[in-house]
């Protein structure tokens, strides 16, 4: 006999009870598109600070992740690009935010590994660049049919890869176009970006949705993040459409 799925819909304030100072939080979005703005505003109001933010970038000045930047809520930032937000650049230069740059595709794969139970990934991206510093590099030996660890001092004899380790977070916020009450999610156009992969790699996943619909109204083949991965759903408040 089929039971009625339990609703995960709560208020933003209730969702913030699961957030805390010093947490590592994944914040998806590309510049200002697909950013979980409602939940970020919730963090602002709840006064949560000393965050380690994993994101692709920091929105634009004063919006989305830019609010956390402006109010000095971020202690450490792991991202690929901050050029769209001059305030982030200033705070990084001033030493107020500790930054780790990771190439955009490597962020995806590190998070994918973190969410998929994989111990690391091998990528050619960043070889012979500062992205190699402090990381292990492997070279494929075609004769032996095995990888070996190498350094820049070794002559290049085969295809090389950087070993990138998994990324995982305490909490992930997600911006959805539609979510049903048990957290099955659909994204819209390029607002999908990092939302889908980030949602796989956190202990606690909170979805904000522009439209919250009844369970059963989304086509199972068109669900992009399964509700089983989602802990809570809140209604999104759309400040500015983009």
């Amino acid at each position: 006999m089929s039971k009625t799925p339990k609703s995960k819909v709560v208020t933003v304030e209730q969702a913030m009870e699961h957030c805390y100072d010093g947490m590592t939080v994944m914040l998806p979005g590309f510049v200002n598109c697909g950013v979980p703005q409602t939940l970020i505003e919730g963090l602002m109001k709840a006064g949560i600070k000393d965050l380690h933010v994993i994101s692709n970038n920091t929105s634009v000045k004063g919006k989305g992740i830019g609010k956390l930047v402006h109010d000095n809520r971020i202690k450490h930032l792991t991202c690929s690009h901050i050029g769209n937000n001059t305030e982030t650049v200033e705070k990084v230069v001033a030493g107020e935010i500790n930054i780790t740059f990771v190439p955009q595709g490597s962020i995806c794969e590190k998070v994918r590994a973190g969410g998929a139970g994989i111990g690391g990934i091998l990528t050619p991206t960043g070889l012979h660049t500062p992205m190699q510093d402090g990381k292990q590099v492997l070279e494929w030996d075609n004769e032996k049919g095995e990888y070996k660890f190498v350094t820049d001092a070794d002559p290049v004899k085969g295809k090389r890869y950087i070993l990138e380790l998994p990324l995982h977070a305490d909490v992930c916020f997600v911006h959805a176009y539609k979510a049903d009450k048990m957290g099955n999610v659909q994204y819209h156009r390029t607002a999908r970006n990092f939302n889908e992969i980030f949602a796989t790699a956190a202990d606690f996943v909170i979805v904000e949705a522009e439209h919250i619909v009844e369970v059963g109204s989304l086509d199972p083949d068109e669900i992009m993040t399964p509700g089983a991965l989602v802990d809570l759903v809140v209604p999104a408040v759309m400040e500015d459409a983009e």
Partner: protein
Amino acid sequence: MKKPENAREIIACRTARFFKDGDLVNLGIGMPTLCLDFIPDDIDVWFDSENGVIGLIGAPNEGDPVPTDVVDAGGRPSMMRVGGCCFDSFRSFGYIRGGHVDATVLGAYEVDAEGNLANWMIPGKAAAGMGGAMDLVTGAKTTIVMTTHCDKAGNPKIVQKTELPLTGWHVVDYIVSELAVIHITPEGPVLEEIAPNTTVEEVVAKTGAKLIVPEKVGCML
């Protein structure tokens, strides 16, 4: 197709001639997006944007409705053509790293004789970050650098060996400037074409890398 009217447009117009019918091309933000205006009439090219979309066709015209949730690699609202599609970031970079993008076009602080590209940070200056550039130059079948031949102080941007932190090592295939088209080959950089208003001597003098000059150098327009 419009006619190029200034140095940046000359660079864009020549770069666009590298694309083949049916190619999937990623244009970096800034000057590379000018290529959209110079696609030859007889070919059809699909544009990829690393934030997760194939089929972008540029910003909406003034007064036209702005599409919701469709932005380009600079975060600006953009139009999509019929047949385009959207996907998430990890698939997007899978397509890029996996060699499914035919050409990536981007700018440079410096590019050198071995095809090394530096375009994401200058030591001592605030770095914006590499975004998707390192993945793009690593994975795309062809990497084309669009750049002014020299910087604002007149120093060559095409050098023998760059000392800047790299975006990619041995990745650049072609350099297109307002003066020349340079092909990076295993033997070294070959001066394949020059602009109509310059000479081989001028290009050689303004290039920091030792150019290979073939007997016949073509015209880039």
